[in-house]
């Protein structure tokens, strides 16, 4: 098979994967978060994900894709050619995945960008001005996500260095987790910080859609329909299931009772942790990664958060930041050359891989954390970041949108 000619099997899989990943945000993340908040904030919470998807979709085709995935300039950024997709025909192949059209490659990368920024909303629900969110989304995508995705996936300097991130442990999850932490600290705590889900059933549906869509996210990141996608698919499911089971065990040990919220949280932690590793590790690796990750995220939620007193409303940092961090490190440990010749981890005789992983992690933490802080400051001084105390008390559905989620 010609590796630089359009392959209809690959193209069909990437079309499917892209639609699957779309489902993760709309309505996956929206429902997952929406069910966890109080009922007076359900619409605002859903809306933050919905609008993040639309805003990202528009800026992506105008300029963001071209900067993230255009021809590399000095390892730092894409060249920005073909703004508005002008000059690109339906038969143009993707330079970075030459068996599929560039249009579906761009759409696939778009749904990743959209979910990354949508995930941040979980940390700030219940108190962030919607107008500030409308400005935050395009700015954050442009300033934080575009460069990082270029460095790791667009042929930039981290890719050249050898950092491994198959589907976004650092680009997506550590990235959004750090941004979420910074933004929620900047915003300050809500008056009522209790996590009392108003409709846990929504969250179960949302988490299930995440799991389902994640097959596109991870197996789609092979950018081809073949053995590597299949291997990533199985690793993803394995780690997710292991994450759910280990969280349930922690719950039983700690409180004596298994909880549904714990189970779906563990599953999402498993999904996050396997994301950077799924195209490099064995099934055994996936089991260990998934099983261990719930412990780290549980600890971050129940110890780190109260200890430092930040109000990460829906634990975006604990789930995505910490499990993403673990996944990125675990990739450096467990990457097996017989799964993917591009990745040789510490356990297969390549200790240097850990160094590349640490550089990747450090870069994402600094870039995402630093710029998110700058953005938060600028938006706070201009639009204002936080709603009035009265609006927070009454709930944002009525006060910001003049709607309510329930008429019963």
């Amino acid at each position: 098979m010609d590796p630089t000619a359009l392959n209809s099997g690959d193209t069909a899989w990437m079309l499917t994967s892209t639609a699957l990943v779309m489902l993760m945000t709309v309505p996956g993340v929206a429902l997952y978060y929406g069910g966890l908040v109080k009922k007076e904030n359900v619409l605002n919470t859903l809306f933050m994900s919905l609008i993040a998807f639309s805003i990202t979709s528009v800026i992506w085709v105008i300029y963001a894709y071209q900067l993230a995935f255009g021809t590399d300039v000095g390892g730092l950024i894409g060249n920005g050619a073909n703004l508005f997709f002008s000059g690109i025909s339906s038969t143009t192949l993707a330079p970075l995945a030459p068996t599929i059209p560039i249009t579906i490659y761009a759409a696939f990368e778009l749904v990743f960008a959209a979910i990354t920024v949508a995930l941040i909303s979980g940390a700030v629900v219940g108190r962030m001005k919607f107008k500030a969110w409308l400005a935050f989304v395009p700015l954050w995508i442009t300033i934080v996500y575009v460069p990082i995705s270029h460095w790791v996936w667009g042929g930039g300097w981290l890719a050249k260095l050898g950092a491994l991130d198959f589907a976004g442990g650092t680009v997506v999850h550590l990235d959004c987790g750090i941004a979420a932490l910074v933004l929620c600290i900047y915003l300050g705590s809500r008056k009522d910080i209790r996590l009392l889900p108003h409709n846990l059933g929504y969250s179960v549906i949302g988490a299930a859609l995440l799991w389902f869509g994640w097959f596109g996210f991870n197996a789609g990141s092979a950018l081809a329909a073949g053995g590597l996608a299949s291997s990533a698919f199985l690793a993803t499911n394995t780690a997710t299931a292991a994450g759910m089971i280990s969280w349930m065990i922690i719950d039983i040990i700690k409180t004596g009772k298994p909880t549904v919220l714990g189970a779906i949280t563990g599953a999402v932690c498993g999904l996050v942790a396997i994301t950077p590793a799924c195209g490099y590790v064995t099934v055994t690796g996936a089991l260990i990664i998934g099983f261990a990750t719930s412990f780290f995220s549980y600890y971050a939620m129940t110890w780190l958060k109260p200890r430092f007193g930040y109000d990460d409303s829906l634990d975006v940092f604990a789930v995505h930041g910490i499990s993403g961090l673990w996944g990125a490190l675990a990739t450096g440990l467990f990457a097996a050359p017989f799964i993917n010749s591009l990745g040789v981890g510490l356990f297969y005789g390549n200790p240097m891989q850990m160094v590349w992983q640490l550089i990747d992690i450090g870069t994402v933490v600094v870039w995402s954390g630093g710029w998110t802080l700058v953005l938060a400051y600028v938006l706070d001084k201009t639009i204002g970041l936080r709603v009035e105390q009265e609006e927070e008390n009454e709930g944002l559905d009525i006060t910001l949108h003049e709607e309510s989620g329930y008429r019963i």
Partner: protein
Amino acid sequence: MKEITAIIRPDKLEVVKNALQEIKCNGVTVTEVKGRGRQLGVTESYRGRDYKVDLLPKTRLEIIVNDKDADDVIDTILKTAQTGDIGDGKIFISPVEDVVRIRTGERGEKAV
């Protein structure tokens, strides 16, 4: 005349209503309320943290009856709403001075 206010379990509303209808006690006002009794609610646990949920959903029935029917109504509610477990609720009984039926202007026992 007496006002009988019963706080019952929401899922008992149907059987209580039906039983009251059988003894020809038709008039009733129903509201969804929240309340707490001696046990101060229940504990819920989310992501490793415990929360005391002290207000539980209950259903309140308000029934005004003539003095002679009061015991019947109370017995009926007691029989149908009781499960024997904590949280079954309470019945409060108080005297009513007067009743006016708005359509006809009747007052007192006739108006009930």
